[in-house]
């Protein structure tokens, strides 16, 4: 067995275990899954508008609630994490990812009890979304309010 053969064999073997630079593939998966979740949201919105006769805004509220319910349940069944491994940002960016982060944090700490585990850890990941959202909305809101006063 020559040294060169070993080297080649080795390179071939490790290739399977090395992380591939798959930016394009990851983006395609994110696009596909994220797009599908949004299309499903559009289907729900139009369903609520046509069947229940709601306005677009009300239908939007029902849609968000439905998506969150589905995402929480899928997280409970362990399905959403598998989708997340495939889709990356495609399942994290939609509002379903927000529900997933709350439910998975709550489930993860269940063994520490309902109060100290589930309730206190629920916003471990989602908290940053709310904090930054509120701070940003305050800053932009005050700027817009002041501009309006001047003009």
């Amino acid at each position: 067995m020559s040294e060169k053969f070993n080297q080649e064999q080795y390179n071939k073997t490790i290739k399977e275990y090395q992380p591939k630079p798959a930016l394009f593939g990851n983006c395609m998966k994110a696009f596909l899954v994220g797009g599908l979740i949004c299309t499903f949201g559009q289907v729900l919105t139009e369903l609520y508008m046509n069947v229940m006769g709601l306005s677009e805004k009300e239908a939007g509220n029902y849609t968000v609630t439905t998506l969150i319910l589905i995402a929480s349940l899928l997280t409970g069944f362990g399905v959403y994490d598998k989708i997340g491994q495939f889709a990356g940002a495609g399942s994290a960016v939609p509002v379903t990812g927000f529900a997933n982060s709350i439910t998975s944090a709550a489930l993860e700490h269940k063994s520490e009890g309902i109060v100290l585990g589930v309730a206190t850890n629920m916003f471990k990941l989602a908290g940053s979304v709310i904090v930054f959202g509120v701070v940003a909305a305050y800053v932009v809101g005050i700027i817009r309010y002041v501009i309006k006063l001047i003009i």
Partner: protein
Amino acid sequence: MDYVWAFVVGGAICVIGQILLDVFKLTPAHVMASFVVSGAVLDGFNIYDKLIEFAGAGATVPITSFGHSLLHGAMEQADKNGLLGIGIGIFHLTSVGIASAILFGFLVALIFKPKG
């Protein structure tokens, strides 16, 4: 056609998130926080409403719309109650999302066993 634009715009927002994850090596929490801030800033320039008109759920389902709704609720009340209105209205439109996420998350955590 609504469905096509919802798919394309929603997918495109997720691709931006994926690029932030892979190229700029941000964590998902950082991506979500940046997206909420972007949504609020875009709404500050009245851009996000146009995107919603165009793409429907493609713009309302991604987390960016959370920032947009926060600012929208805040500005609605600010028109009526002045500066204090920002605080009164900030969760006005988003409370349904947060409340249902808390409720369902809590119930699922009670019923299901953690996997893995």
